[in-house]
């Protein structure tokens, strides 16, 4: 038996792991600690003569074409292997639209003829790289921040929180603040805004944020002259640098700021797991790389939990945070690389099964989430 297994292992091609994010796509092999490439989720569209984003689509057909082009780019320019007869681990959010994942399945199985696809949700994969039984995954991506509780390898589905508090919210705020700094409408392209964010922005501590809000700030950080090609350099003031990421923490009556949704997620979890969750918080996602963001989040949580409405409903006062075992932007990907390598893709949806049923299991679908008698 061991002999046969050995042969099977040799014949089994190393699977690939695909994390198709809104802004950036992570792609590489299972069993490797880092993706082979992290590239923008866009491809050159020759008919429209522009770069086209995979996530920009109006119809299922357009999305199908987008996937075909993007995967071609990934397979033949970056990882350089044949897609055919090779398994794929797809890292996805639990809130991925049905059309998106079903179209992706169609492209992978029928167009690229992959032998199997393992669908894995990013919160559980993030929990995998921690190895703790409970984990509260705070994933701050391009479009949304998602807070998901994972308890003993199961997601607490009714407690999932998501708000549009991602990189795009920061970019919007940053471009508004830059216009104020330079007193003109700059209309900078998204990529430059992103570059300014990466190079200059940070998240100040709580006291400073409160002082900014009340209008009597301390010394602002140093301002930066950011050179632009073909234009005059623009000023990025210290205020802009510090406040660009502030929308993530902005509270209003909706209680929809980042620390708010974390606490709400904990409140909605079973009472016996709340303490463990609060002590196993894992902040990840590309946007979590902004200097100071994690520290600020910790301070905000510790403060907010003493305030109504949380102080009456949560007796937790201690929050603990995990240091990541992977780079923030590829933590979920690394989890996928682990999951795919550990069981050799045994959990993958095989192509012949897909061909017979032509559907995917999905948690909101009654076919999959009702108990059979």
């Amino acid at each position: 038996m061991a002999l046969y297994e050995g042969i099977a292992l040799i014949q089994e091609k190393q699977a690939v792991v695909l994390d198709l994010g809104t802004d950036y796509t992570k792609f590489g092999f299972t069993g490797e600690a880092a993706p082979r490439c992290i590239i923008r989720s866009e491809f050159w569209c020759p008919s429209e003569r522009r770069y086209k984003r995979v996530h920009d689509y109006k119809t299922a057909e357009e999305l199908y074409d987008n996937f075909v082009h993007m995967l071609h780019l990934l397979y033949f320019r970056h990882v350089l292997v044949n897609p055919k007869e090779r398994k794929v681990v797809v890292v996805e959010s639990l809130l991925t639209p049905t059309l998106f994942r079903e179209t992706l399945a169609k492209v992978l199985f029928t167009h690229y003829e992959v032998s199997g696809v393992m669908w894995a949700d990013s919160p559980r994969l993030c929990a995998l790289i921690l190895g703790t039984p409970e984990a509260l995954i705070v994933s701050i991506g391009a479009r949304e921040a998602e807070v998901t509780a994972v308890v003993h390898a199961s997601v607490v589905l009714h407690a999932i929180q998501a708000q549009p508090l991602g990189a795009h919210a920061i970019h919007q705020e940053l471009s508004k603040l830059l216009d104020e700094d330079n007193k003109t409408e700059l209309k900078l392209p998204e990529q430059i805004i992103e570059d300014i964010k990466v190079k200059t922005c940070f998240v100040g501590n709580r006291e400073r944020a409160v002082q900014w809000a009340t209008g009597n700030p301390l010394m602002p950080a140093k301002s930066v002259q950011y050179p632009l090609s073909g234009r005059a350099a623009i000023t990025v003031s210290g205020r802009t640098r510090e406040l660009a990421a502030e929308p993530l923490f902005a509270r209003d009556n909706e209680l929809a700021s980042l620390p708010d949704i974390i606490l709400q997620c904990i409140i909605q979890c079973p009472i016996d797991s709340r303490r463990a969750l609060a002590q196993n918080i894992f902040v990840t996602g590309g946007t979590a790389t902004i200097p100071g963001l994690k520290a600020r989040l910790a301070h905000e949580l510790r403060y907010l939990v003493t305030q109504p409405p949380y102080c009456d409903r949560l007796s937790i006062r201690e929050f603990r945070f995990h240091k990541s075992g992977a780079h923030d932007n590829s933590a979920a990907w690394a989890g996928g690389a682990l999951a795919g390598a550990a069981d050799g893709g045994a959990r993958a949806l095989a192509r012949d099964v897909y061909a017979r049923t032509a559907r995917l299991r999905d948690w909101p679908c009654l076919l999959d989430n009702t108990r059979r008698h």
Partner: protein
Amino acid sequence: MAYLIQEDYVKYVCSCGQLKPITSLYFCRHCLKIRCGFCICHEVDSHYCANCLENMPSSEARLKKNRCSSCFDCPSCFHTLSTRAMIAQARPSAQDGASGDTKVENKQPKKTYYLSCFNCRWTSRDVGIPDQPVASGGWPERTNPFANRFNQLLDYYKAVAQLEKQEKLERERKKFAIRGKYITLTDKTGLTGAMARNIAGLPPSESGSSATLANFTPSQASAEVEELPEDFYTKEVDLKQITSLSQRLAAPARQPARGSRLWPLPKRLSVKRSQRCRACDHNLTKPEYNPGSIKFKIELLAYYHVPEVKIISFESVKPGTRSELLLKVTNPTGHEMRLRLLQPSDVPVEEEQPKSIEKSLEKSLTLEKVCNN
């Protein structure tokens, strides 16, 4: 007709229904059908380095992670780095004191090499990489800071998967044992292999995996979160010292945030692709193996088989009047060809391709079944 930079005015209907210019169409000699890049199967044919034009066998390419071992890209601007030689200057002050023999050595000028970018002037000396005594290779490599932890996790989850598999086997064995229909060797003796080893006082056969299970430590959460350094509020920002996102993502394993941590990027290999008809599995194109050659061994382009249509002149169409359209049709083959002009209403509706993709899937599935049986 196809133009290099202008729009494609004449488009051909591929058998999959897509409209493409003739330059991006193929003609399968075996199915006698037009095929396009969308409806054929792409395959990796050979790996090569586009800079040194060196072929690399795919097994070696896999080992080297699809990177050339002698060519490097600039980590700052992604241009190809060139190796530059330097005659080492005898430094009397440092060497005189070191030993008396240096004077003898100094008689032969020693050549050392470093990497330099002609485009942005980045050199390997900028980041403190010592010059190398040989021109090719030997450049020190940087590794992923998370690789160790990742491998620990990988071993752990492999052990878990192994354990699960064993338990499953055990359960199945028990199920059969209750039925009493199948008697295996271990059933006769009432022992499982593991129990037998246990009784005999031998260490369990999978001691390696159980040790991994026992020794594994989950990630430890801490209340301390890395605070933003206090000097962030006062320090000048040197944009040149902070890497851009694309510079970070070019090395997904390390993602250096400071310019001083940039490291030469081994050049990514390219592939030659061969293309295959999905319906009959015959090659449509197959490139020559030699990386320097841009010729093909097999090249079934539509251009060689399908008449080319050019628009010579046209009149703008007005309602109720005849307009003239002058077409030039070229027969690329040496054989006679019959041409029929059809009214739009007479064009036969072809519904071949969408099915044929599924058919090819079905075909490969039946193939799979045949193989399995």
